[in-house]
Each structure stands twice: as structure tokens, then as C-alpha cells.
């Protein structure tokens, strides 16, 4: 699953199946993200695209998800 993106957004988030459909993980992601990028639904995790540009690159979501299943994609090149 990949969030739709907007021009001003500097990251994207990819969350693989089956993690994306896991309602427990969805709750966890909603809890750890301090800027509201994840919303828990009965179908799993919804990425709130309007919040993506609020990301503070804390990586708590990557730590909360099963290893390798969630990736923060940086849309800039240093």
C-alpha cells in the first residue's frame, strides 16, 4: 500500500501486506505517530495523506511495524 502524494510532501510511506491489514498494528501505528499520519480502521492502517508533510522523521512507525514491512521513502536527495 502506498499513500497518494502531493507535490509539497517530502516523504512517502510504504506499508506492505499483510501488515497493512493488521488491525492491531494499525492501532499501534496510530498510537506511536506523534503527528497523526496513521489512522486505525477495521480494515487495517489508513495513511492520512494530508499529514505526511508533518512527519518529523522520528522513525517510531518503522520501529513499531514488523521488520521491513514499513518504509519511509524520502522524496529528496541530499
Amino acid at each position, binding site marked *: 500500500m502506498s499513500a497518494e502524494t502531493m507535490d*509539497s*510532501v*517530502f516523504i512517502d510511506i510504504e506499508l506492505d501486506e499483510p501488515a497493512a491489514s493488521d488491525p492491531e498494528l494499525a492501532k499501534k501505528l496510530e498510537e506511536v505517530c*506523534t503527528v*497523526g499520519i496513521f489512522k486505525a480502521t477495521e480494515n487495517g492502517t489508513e495513511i492520512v495523506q494530508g499529514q505526511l508533510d508533518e512527519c*518529523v*522523521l522520528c522513525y*517510531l512507525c518503522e520501529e513499531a511495524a514488523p521488520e521491513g514491512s514499513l518504509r519511509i521513502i524520502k522524496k529528496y536527495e*541530499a
Partner: protein
Amino acid sequence: MSILLNKDTTFIVQGITGREAVNLTKECLDYGSKVVGGVTPGRKGREVHGVPVFDTVAQAVENHGSQIDGSIVTVPPGFTKDAVIEAIAGGIKLIVVVTERIPRGDVAEMVEFADMNEARIIGPNCLGLIVPEVCKMGGIGGPAKDAAKSYKPGVVGVMSRSGGMTTEISSSLTAAGLGVSTAVSIGGDAIIGSTYAELMPYFEADEETQAIVIYSEPGGRMEAQLADWQAENNSRLPIVAFMAGKFMDDESMKGMTFGHAGTIVEGKEDSATEKIKRLESAGITVVERIDEIPDAVKERIGS
């Protein structure tokens, strides 16, 4: 001893012809700092308080004849990323970014670029850093005569997200006879170049520093990172945290936020009460009033 700055540190001011930059240039010069140049595109040949102005960082470096240690970046938000990258490309390793309201993606990019090039960014949205009676880089402490009153040499390293509180805390330490080794205004934005935990190794290596004081407020993860760092590294330095904003945990204050962008977050770990628990569990002393800081530091260092 000190961290990041010393009496020989040279730096430039990017955006030096702007009003705030003109003021802070004078403040730094009056305090004894070595401001060796300024950069504003199209203004080469001018001077600001005797400091030569150049069009580019490369020209400033060439004129100086050797590596320049630092740069204060005061250019408008839309140009800050390019200014920082230009400074780093010019071999500068310490960048103080004063500018606020920089797009978050730009900050992320310039912090990553700095990491890749072994440069350190302080800020954005900060007042810089100061080594009492040696030099200051940025508007921290205000005019030299005021900075001289608030900052005396001593044994405490100070780090604060709030620029004003950096001086307020330092002033209380100075008045108590403890003094300050180095004070760093790390910046109030959500993404910054140097966090508390990232600066701790510098203080750890500074023999003069015997304790650390940080300013803390609800929001953000920096205190959690510091607590983790403290627990993992068994630091020789006792830390005292001044925790502001506990009143925000009151039910009637829900939804209210502080002004710093880094505090406008909603995580459960971010409340003052949770932060206090986490800090104390890592052995960090937490006080809730400024006038409690000096005694807490004295108790921790046994003086």
C-alpha cells in the same frame, strides 16, 4: 575548554546585510568572536561593521585564505537550504541556522546533507551558541554587554529548545556561582540538526563540563532520546531538566500548545508528566521552577 567553539573559531554570516544579521554581527564582534566575512549575493565589496561582504561562500573562503570553521545562516526560509548546502560545500563544518519557518522537507534534506559531509547544524530557529567570555555565534545572550552579565565561565553545559530560556537558565547558573561551559540554543523546530542526545558526547568529552541542564517542554521526542542515551552510555555527567508546561496536563488545558513547532504534537509520550517519568527513570533530575535549577545542579555534582 568548551564544545564546538573556541577562541580561534572563525565564521561567516550568510545573509549579512539583512537587518537582524547586521545586529547579530555587531553583537558577535563586540563579544570577541572572529567574524571573517559575510555573504549576500550581489553585495560584494560592501562592509558590515568592518566585515567584508562577498557574493558567495567560496569568495569568502578564498579571501580568508584558509578554512572557515562556521557560518551563521540568516537568509529567508526559501533560500536557507541552498545557503546551508553552499556553506557545507565550501568546507564549513558548523552551521548555525537562525531562520525559522523553513519548509520541513528542506530541513530534512539539509540535515542529511550535513550528516553525509560530517558537518553539524545547530537549529533551525535557534539563537546559536556561546562560550562565556570567549566567543558567541549567533544572537544568543543579546548585545555583548548583556551576554557578559548572563554568561560567566563555569562548569555547566546548557541546552535548550527555547532561545530565551537558554539565557534565563544560564543567568540563574551564573548568579549561583556555577557558571556555564557552553550554552547551546538548539532550535525550536520539529526537525533540527542537533538534539540533546547528539550533543551529549561533545559535553562528555569536555573536561570542564561537570553537569548538564536542559530546558524541556511538552511535545517532541528529544527527552526520550536523551533518556535512552543516558541509560545506554552511563554518562559521567549528571543532568538536570527544567520541565516547563506541566499545567498543560490538566484536563482543562487539553488542546493547548506551546509556541515552538517541535512541541505541536499529540503523542501520549509527549505530556509533561510522561516526560518527567521517563527522565527520572533514566536518573535525570527534574525541576519545575527555574530557581530550583542551581541547587539541583549543586546537589548532583556534590558542591
